[in-house]
């Protein structure tokens, strides 16, 4: 098995515990509900406009499956073409290697500051923290990332990292954290954007080095692409002298033409827009125009490990649109912090364990953080069957724990017993003879209000009706077969 990923991919506490805490934060729940429902409705509207949406999803999924099946070849092709155009390719096995490569590249420029284009990959490897430890300041330029950075907070959504904050909270962060800011700043979105713009403009003009992620890499041309809403990314991609991109190896697409499919799928799925305002594509170095030192760090960090899982590998098809989290009822109520990883929501619940290994203690509770309602699968533009992978990973989790445990848990015993009881019609029939006992336990109002052991969670907010006197099976024998 290839090595697992590192960095900001691990839960530090079990999901149910983190979820319990987050559920108590009513302001966050209100903000989240409002934001996710707004994006949901917008997405449905613009998706509905395309008569060939299902065909596009199929195309996206097929292109991705094909590039994953020929990943090595695609990456080598990309390397060749990117290098031919004056770019430099670096390969990083894990977070440590990637962080070291980037740090050395930045140090070689003599600069102690970098501006950043919003990127999940650098988040995943904890690049900002690493740079800080090396005496290099990294400034996030995406508005939402900036809010999170200034607020000393953690992102809680992959597209809208500050989704858990409302505008009043944002104003308070700006007032207390920006070095120069109008003390009468209101929470009007336009005013807030203006304050951020003034703050960032200075950074753009001074920066010598920019660090970005990439939404895709095109193997046949050696091109990289970033899709964004604010244009701040484009500033970073064009003004500095040095541009370093950190990209997960799964982002490579075979052909230039593939962009057509993903540029229809991505904006509609992520922000509910027909098209995002800024799409930047760059192919190596262009003399006298834009950055003259162009690097890419191709990051594995557990991706080849995920690729080795035949049921789980399609999680690598993810284009990070965030549609799955916007429709997820669990995410809606707990927010992104409960998932303890750079990748929250349904995709996070499968991606983190796939990248780092389900047998790692911290990840065991993630695949259970879903009612398997399937809303994520329905929304996913590249048709990742998230519920199926969740169930598959639960199987891996139980298998891994089975090997470690000496004493069986209550759940183990329940499942073993259930396996016997439900493994034969005769056995369930025998057990059903005890139904009148349950009826007795329910008492006069015909409700069971308290269950023991692990089942106690159920009766925390739900009654169980008194069982019937007779099972259907017995009724059938008595009424139908005796005829």
């Amino acid at each position: 098995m290839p090595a697992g990923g590192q960095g900001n991919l691990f839960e530090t506490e079990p999901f149910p515990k983190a979820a319990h805490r987050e559920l108590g934060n009513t302001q966050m729940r209100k903000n989240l509900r409002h934001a996710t429902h707004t994006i949901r409705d917008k997405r449905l509207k613009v998706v509905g406009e395309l008569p060939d949406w299902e065909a596009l999803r199929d195309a996206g999924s097929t292109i991705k499956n094909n590039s994953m099946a020929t990943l090595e070849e695609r990456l080598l092709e990309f390397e060749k073409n990117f290098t031919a155009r004056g770019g430099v390719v670096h390969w990083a096995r894990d977070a440590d290697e990637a962080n070291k490569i980037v740090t050395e590249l930045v140090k070689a420029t003599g600069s102690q500051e970098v501006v950043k284009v919003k990127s999940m990959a650098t988040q995943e490897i904890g690049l900002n923290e690493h740079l800080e430890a090396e005496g290099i300041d990294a400034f996030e330029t995406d508005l939402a990332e900036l809010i999170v950075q200034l607020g000393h907070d953690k992102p809680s959504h992959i597209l809208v990292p500050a989704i858990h904050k409302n505008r009043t909270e944002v104003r308070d962060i700006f007032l207390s954290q920006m070095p120069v800011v109008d003390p009468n700043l209101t929470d009007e979105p336009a005013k807030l954007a203006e304050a951020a713009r003034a703050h960032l403009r200075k950074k753009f003009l001074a920066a010598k080095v920019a660090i970005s992620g990439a939404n895709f890499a095109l193997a046949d041309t050696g091109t990289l692409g970033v899709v964004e809403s604010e244009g701040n990314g484009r500033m970073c991609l064009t003004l500095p002298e040095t541009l370093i991109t950190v990209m997960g190896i799964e982002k490579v697409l075979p052909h230039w033409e593939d962009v057509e499919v993903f540029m229809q799928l991505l904006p509609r799925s992520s922000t509910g827009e027909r098209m995002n305002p800024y799409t930047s594509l760059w192919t190596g170095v262009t003399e006298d125009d834009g950055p003259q030192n162009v690097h890419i760090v191709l990051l594995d960090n557990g991706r080849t490990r995920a690729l080795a899982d035949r049921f789980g590998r399609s999680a690598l098809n993810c284009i990070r649109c965030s549609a799955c989290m916007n429709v997820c009822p669990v995410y809606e109520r707990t927010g992104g912090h409960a998932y303890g990883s750079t990748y929250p929501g349904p995709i996070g619940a499968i991606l983190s364990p796939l990248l780092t290994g389900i047998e790692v203690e911290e990840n065991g509770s993630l695949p259970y953080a879903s009612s398997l309602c399937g809303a994520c699968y329905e929304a996913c533009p590249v048709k990742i069957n998230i519920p199926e992978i969740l169930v598959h990973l639960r199987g891996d989790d139980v298998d891994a724990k089975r090997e470690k445990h000496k004493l069986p848990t209550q759940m183990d015993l329940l499942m073993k017993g259930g396996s016997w009881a439900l493994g034969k019609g005769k056995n369930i029939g025998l057990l059903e003879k005890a139904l009148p006992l349950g009826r007795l336990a329910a008492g006069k109002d015909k409700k069971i209000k308290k269950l023991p052991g692990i089942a106690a969670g159920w009766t925390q907010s739900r009654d169980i009706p008194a069982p019937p006197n007779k099972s259907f099976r017995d009724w059938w024998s008595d009424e139908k077969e005796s005829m």
Partner: protein
Amino acid sequence: MRIALFATCIVDAMYPETAKSTVKILERLGHEVIFPKAQACCGQMHMNSGYMPEALPVVENHVRAFDTDEYDVAVAPSGSCVASVKHQHPYLAQRLGKPELKDRAKAVGARTYELSQLLVDVLGITNAAAQLGSYFPETITYHPSCHGMRSLGLGDRQLDLLKTVGGITVNELPEADQCCGFGGTFSIKNADVSSAMLDDKVKNICSTGASACSGGDASCLMHIGGGLSRTGAKPKTLHLADILASTMEETVTL
């Protein structure tokens, strides 16, 4: 037609009336219903909890019970169990390296239908009052369970049938397509999140003024009913099959 009833474990043990209703409807249409007694459960609980080796005997048992020539199609009054038979059984067989079981499971899945699917797609029922004599003089609302709606793609089949029941008023449920929070052992393992989801479902149901919430999955209805009961709310839950089986002569009471 000879129709095999897959009663599902929850219906068999907790809601025998729903299975009886299913039999009534099909017999009323002139079909013969058989009950393969070797059946027990689809194994969904085991698989969704990650206990794959433990699920194997359950899945094998189901395939054995239904892999016969004694019937034309099988039916279950539960979308999630049908989805499990169709999708999860072949997955489990593949995971545990049992290609022969996979083929048989697929064949069983291919002729297993959820109740509304069978009624609408196979038996051509479009008007419950006219074709089934269904009569239920109450105001209800309807919750489409996730597995039926998404894994099986039932669309509006259940709702359309309910709307054509004699005497019925169907009030639309706000946020109907939102999960009720059951999810099998999810409701135990993540009881807090599940309760928060259930809370919203209960509020939405109460807001419709209906005296009952109907649906096609006994387990979701048990979950929703449990929440309604705990909060002391007035509406009850009632399975789609029970409403369709209700007639002018023999009206089901809430």
